[in-house]
């Protein structure tokens, strides 16, 4: 019995060290973001002497992170709504409707998970430039939506397939059309799945950097990761402002994560267990 408790202590010690490695960097950035710029050279690791919000104000307005947060929010919400509708419709078609190519089209969608987005960057960029979709948020929403579809469809197919047949049968007998069955019976029942996929889509798109960087060059239309990368660069020397910018960029996801961590975890595992 004694031996067991020693091994437990070692396990906990190890986990606590891991936790420190994870939390310390974030706390450090948070602390520095409240300091004056001169203070970072004199005492980079102490508590801020006179906590100030000036850094946040500067990053939010002059660093254009405020408008970037708004842009990110618009892009992510619209993408989220459409990917849920289009994705769950296709998932319903694959899981419930009876046609020959259902499985094949699922494979087609899932291939999208294996393909690196970098490959489509150039053709998409040139085509979008021709039709004037670069430098607009719509031009960002369309690819984001497309790349969100595979995971949405994958998870939702699982949900629709696990629904009992009797539900659809009884709705059928009551004279519902197929659209009513989808919108009034299946979709409300697949709420959990939708929520989970929605969260994952949102977080994924919120963090996307490459597409946003290539497609948007107008400062007022940049999304958060792009504005952040631009604001925090080798030419900026005001470190505390940059630290505040980093905090602004990660706070929204931390809040979402704290509120929904269990669902996010479920979504992640649901998405991969069957793969």
């Amino acid at each position, binding site marked *: 019995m004694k031996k067991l408790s020693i091994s437990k202590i070692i396990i906990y010690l190890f986990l606590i060290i891991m936790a420190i490695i994870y939390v310390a960097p974030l706390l450090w950035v948070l602390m520095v973001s409240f300091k004056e710029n001169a203070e*970072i*050279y004199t005492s980079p690791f102490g508590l801020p002497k006179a906590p100030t919000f000036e850094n946040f104000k500067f990053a939010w307005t002059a660093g254009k992170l405020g408008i970037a947060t708004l842009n990110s929010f618009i892009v992510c919400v619209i993408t989220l709504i459409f990917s849920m509708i289009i994705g769950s419709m296709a998932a319903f078609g694959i899981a419930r*409707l009876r046609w020959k190519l259902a499985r094949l089209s699922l494979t087609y969608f899932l291939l999208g998970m294996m393909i690196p987005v*970098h490959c489509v960057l150039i*053709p998409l960029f040139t085509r979008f430039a021709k039709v004037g979709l670069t430098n607009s948020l719509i031009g960002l929403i369309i690819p984001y939506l497309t790349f969100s579809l595979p995971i949405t469809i994958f998870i939702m197919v699982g949900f629709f397939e696990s629904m009992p047949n009797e539900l659809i049968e009884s709705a059928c007998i009551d004279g519902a059309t*197929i659209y009513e069955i989808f919108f009034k019976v299946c979709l409300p029942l697949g709420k959990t799945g939708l929520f989970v996929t929605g969260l994952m889509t949102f977080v994924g798109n919120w*963090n996307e950097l490459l597409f946003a960087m290539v497609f948007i060059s107008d400062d007022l239309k940049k999304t958060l990761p792009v504005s*952040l990368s631009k604001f925090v660069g080798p030419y900026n020397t005001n470190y505390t402002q940059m630290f505040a910018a980093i905090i602004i960029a990660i706070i929204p996801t931390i809040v979402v994560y704290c509120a929904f961590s269990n669902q996010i975890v479920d979504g*992640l595992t649901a998405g991969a*267990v069957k793969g």
Partner: protein
Amino acid sequence: MDKLLRNKKAIAVFMAPGLILFTVILFVPICQSVYYSFCEYKAITPPEFIGLENYKTLFKDKTFWIAIKNSLFFLVFSCVTQLIMGLLLAGLLTNIDKGRNLFKNIIYLPCVLSSAALGLLWMFIFSPQFGINKLIETLGVPNYSVDGPLWLMDTNGFIVLPMWVIAFVSLWQYVGQSMMLYMAQISGISKELYEASYIDGCTKAKTFRFITLPLIRPMVATAMSLNAIGSLKFFDMVYNMTEGGPNHMTEVLATHLYQQGFKYTKYGYASAIGVVLLVMCLLVTAFINKVVKTEQYEM
């Protein structure tokens, strides 16, 4: 009901938006990209077919080989370390009760944060003036902020130090994902199997080796292919920590593609890099699934 579910019009309505979007935005551009890779294509002039020229230049391009080397290093490093650390953490966390969720959530947290922001954060931590070197100096090693290693600037060795640093940071960020996948799989294993093995006199280590490990093998394949594709696609962190520098020593395929395509607008050439990347992704996934995945056991 059968008639209702076989209705051709309904099928078309449900499937069309997704399929059209997917084809137009993903599959047509991929084919285009393959075509562009055989073309001389700069920003202003239309693409002009030149056969294998781009690939020939590519294979003579020193930076391309550095990028391949770094990408492969990333691939191997992340597959191996994520497997070990992920399994270790998952094994430890499934063995404790108090604080399991807390530790799990803390370690998973960086996975949902922007790697662009975290890359910047770690860039500051590894910067000589006030990051980790300064901390070591404060803790008692004199002059360490001057004499300590230049984490993100060093250019010696086959795999340069900045690459190790970036690989470590990416492990830090994404190990939570592997851990979570393994934990889900481990908690799905029936308790009776473990009880039986304890009755037969197995130690904890042995049960892990002969019960847990074989049963989570399918998940190892899944997690590994996710890691592999993720590490080949890796862009945000490298871009924000070093931008491929110093002197292209930390260039990976994705940053090289971005540089060539959008800094120098060599679309054809960058497409060729994209095709190499695509082929590597498909090969690696196929390889991992062939080697690691075995038959599913009944649990």
